[in-house]
């Protein structure tokens, strides 16, 4: 059952999934947010009848179309990669994980793909109101697809609503609603979508700022900024709130991830929050390159304890507590978890062997023992740890998690201020004179993408080595294939996606330079 696992295969498979996910994630946030911004704009057009709003809507729609196409292209790979590269995972949890993916297709993708055609080509074919409805349904469809994939992702971070069936060697769903309304899934959805709205709002403001700097299409630019600033500000407030509650939940459910992105090695009561820190290049522990010392830190006392447990003096476990154990705080050592996980795996193997040998009575008794509450709570709970061969494998990259988290938080603060300033300047009618702000607005676009990618890194690198928290590490989930094959597909996708990204950026920049149609009708 535990055959030798080629670590280079695991690493290449992870690299390939990270590559496709991160490329996909370049385009998705803009789609999620800009469809809603376009829907707001078209609503204003339908309500006021002012043709300028129609021109504005169409301009942003053109940019959305360019972004959407490549989002679709990168997305299809992701769905099938669960099977191609993580086939053991696909079976182990397919009974639960497949459902959200199917629902995503039936509910969300069809809605999106049906109405997007009306949105682009239906201006002269359907009524104004039906067109508006199609635009809203495209936006809703896009965001619904985010819901279902994040439900699936949330479940991987905190598996709920299922039971392991030793007969089939997989987890089986017991309660759909527990999966759908898992707090982890809900937080993930809210934080991810609201941060996507922030990115899209920044994109709209940044592009509009370029028009103002060029003294072109001033009215369109200012109107667009007004809409995006309001939407962006509300979204950024919500991003902060949902991020805060999300962090609290991680502290409870994924303490190692929390310790990693906070850079907390040794837990303490009244733990301080590192507001700023620079890590050294030398390892804290010579056996683990994932642990780096801090050269300097600025720490705010007690805040981390409050953030995690709403108690200024609560104990927050650090990486070392989680590895070595802390009996005083009731934290089991990683080695103990590994030992228990191995017992759970062995018990399953004994059961399978007995079944194969036709020893029905022994198989039944082993199954009863396996399914007993005490075995589930004390051994099966640590099933995934049984695959771990060295406790150091349980520590994610602290520098990567720490820096990604802090970059995301600091930029999040700037974005909120940015929206306030945008709204203030545009309502005062002075935005076109604030050259420094307009330039900053353009530069904020790449920063929004950086923050967005950093958020993804925090969520996914921070949870390593787990594909499913505590139940399945990446090394057990991977498809057994030669690492050379995965290497080939990795480079193939890297080349294809990079080529398409260059095409996308070049087309996007040209379309922005062309600007909105001067008048209604006729193609450019």
């Amino acid at each position, binding site marked *: 059952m535990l055959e030798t696992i080629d670590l280079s295969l695991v690493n290449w498979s992870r690299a390939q999934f990270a590559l496709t996910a991160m490329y996909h994630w370049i385009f998705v946030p803009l789609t999620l947010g800009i469809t809603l911004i376009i829907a707001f704009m078209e609503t204003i057009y339908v309500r006021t009848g002012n043709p300028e709003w129609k021109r504005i809507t169409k301009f942003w729609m053109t940019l959305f179309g360019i972004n959407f196409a490549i989002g679709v292209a990168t997305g299809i790979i992701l769905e099938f990669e669960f099977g191609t590269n993580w086939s053991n995972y696909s079976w182990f949890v397919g009974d639960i994980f497949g459902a959200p993916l199917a629902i995503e297709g039936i509910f969300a993708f069809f809605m999106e793909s049906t109405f997007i055609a009306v949105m682009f080509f239906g201006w002269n074919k*359907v009524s104004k109101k039906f067109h508006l409805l199609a635009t809203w349904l495209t936006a809703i469809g896009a965001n619904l697809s985010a819901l279902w994939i994040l439900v699936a992702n949330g479940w991987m971070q905190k598996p709920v609503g299922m039971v392991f069936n030793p007969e089939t060697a997989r987890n089986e769903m017991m309660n759909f609603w527990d999966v759908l309304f898992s707090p982890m899934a809900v937080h993930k959805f809210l934080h991810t979508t609201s941060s996507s709205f922030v990115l899209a709002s920044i994109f709209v403001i940044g592009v509009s700022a370029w028009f103002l700097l060029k003294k072109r299409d001033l009215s369109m630019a200012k109107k667009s900024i007004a809409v995006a600033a309001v939407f962006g500000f509300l979204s950024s407030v919500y991003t902060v709130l949902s991020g805060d509650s999300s962090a609290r939940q991680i502290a409870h459910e994924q303490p190692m991830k929390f310790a990693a992105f906070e850079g907390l090695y040794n837990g303490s009561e009244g733990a301080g929050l590192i507001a700023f820190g620079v890590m050294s290049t030398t390892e804290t522990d010579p056996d683990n390159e994932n642990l780096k010392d801090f050269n300097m830190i600025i720490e705010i006392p007690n805040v981390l304890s409050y953030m995690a447990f709403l108690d200024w003096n609560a104990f927050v476990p650090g990486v070392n507590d989680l590895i070595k154990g802390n009996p005083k705080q009731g934290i089991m050592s990683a080695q103990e978890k590994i030992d228990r996980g191995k017992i759970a795996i062995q018990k399953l193997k004994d059961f399978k062997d007995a079944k194969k040998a036709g020893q029905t009575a022994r198989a039944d008794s082993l199954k009863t023992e396996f399914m007993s509450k005490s075995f589930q709570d004390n051994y099966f709970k640590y099933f995934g740890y049984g695959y771990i061969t060295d406790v150091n494998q349980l520590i994610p990259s602290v520098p990567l998690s720490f820096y990604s988290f802090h970059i995301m938080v600091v930029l999040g603060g700037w974005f909120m201020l940015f929206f306030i300033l945008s709204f203030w300047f545009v309502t005062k009618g002075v935005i076109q004179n604030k050259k420094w702000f307009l330039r900053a607005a353009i530069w904020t676009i790449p920063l929004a993408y950086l923050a967005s990618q950093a958020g993804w890194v925090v969520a996914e690198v921070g949870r390593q080595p787990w594909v499913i928290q505590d139940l399945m590490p990446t090394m057990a989930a991977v498809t057994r294939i030669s690492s050379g094959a995965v290497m080939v597909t990795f480079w*193939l996708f890297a080349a294809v996606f990079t080529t398409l990204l260059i095409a996308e950026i*070049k087309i996007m920049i040209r379309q922005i330079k062309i600007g909105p149609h001067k008048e209604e009708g006729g193609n450019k």
Partner: protein
Amino acid sequence: MFESLSHLVLQQYWWIIVSLLGALFVFLTFVQGGQTLIYTIGKTDTERTMLINTLGRKWEFTFTTLVTFGGAFFASFPLFYSTSFGGAYWVWFAILIFFVIQAVSYEYRKKPNNFLGAKTFEWFLILNGLFGTILVGTAVGTFFNGAMFSLNEMNNVIWATPFRGLEAVLTFHNVALGLSVFFLARVLGLLYFMNSVESDEMFARSKKHLLYNTIPFLVFFLFFLIALILKEGFAYNPETGEVFMEKYKYLHNLLAMPLVAVILLVGVVGVLWGIASALLKKSTKGIWFAGAGTVFTVWMLLLLAGFNNTSFYPSIHDLQSSLTIENASSSHYTLTAMSYVSLTVPFVLGYIWYTWKSMNKTKISKEELGKEDHLY
């Protein structure tokens, strides 16, 4: 409602749905087939633009159906998902890469400063149409001819060849299905052009090429169908789950399920009628007969693969690792939950139908394209 159904009934229900999605996908490959004909039917840049725009308003349906087919298969028969996708690695990635290049091509082809040039994106569409259909058809051929895998005690897939699924092309019966799908997609693409494009020249060219593509389609498809009826198949004992070879298995399946046989026949007649009406009566409605016929035919073929105690994804490397709708499915609970979700499918089909009608009210013509802000 669904809770009270037995696990087997739910498994059958889901095999029917997944098969229907597969059948709809094959119908929607008229987009792929049409893409391979843009230079054959479109002789000028304007004509090619007309063809690409009429296909471009539908390509996402095909794409979405493929994705939903994958998702529904994952949810209902996860062991197939993990075994086939993880095992036949090269086949699936080859298919995917040809769909990736399609997804950007419509939007980017005509856009200025598009880095690769319009011709490259047109070639992306042609490659998608060519390999997307042939590879999918060949891969589905393994439902009837088996694949080279085994499963361990954790149901993890082990593939027996380093070619990871590409060896399917060595079985001509698989390739015959791949080529049938390819030529069928071209036939459907031509019928769609005849239905949706306003141009006498292109109508005439489409009609001529319809005949040229119908002949190889019929040759490969009839070969596939006759060989299928005559070949031995992968049966299993419903009591023990043991898989064994049975002579004339698919013929037996047809005889055991007369309704499937009748619908299959109706489907084939529908396809032929669609083609004949376009060829002989210059009808523009051929796409609907041939399209419906395609859906019925493929749907029933997939039912033949999975019903009547047949292994739908057999292993020729380790017969007892073969997948059946009983051993590869999700749990009773998950199938029940998903069955409730399936009740919304008619609603989804309803709004697709409504918007399709609204968008295709006027045919694609030079004048119509001139009025559009958004062009592919």
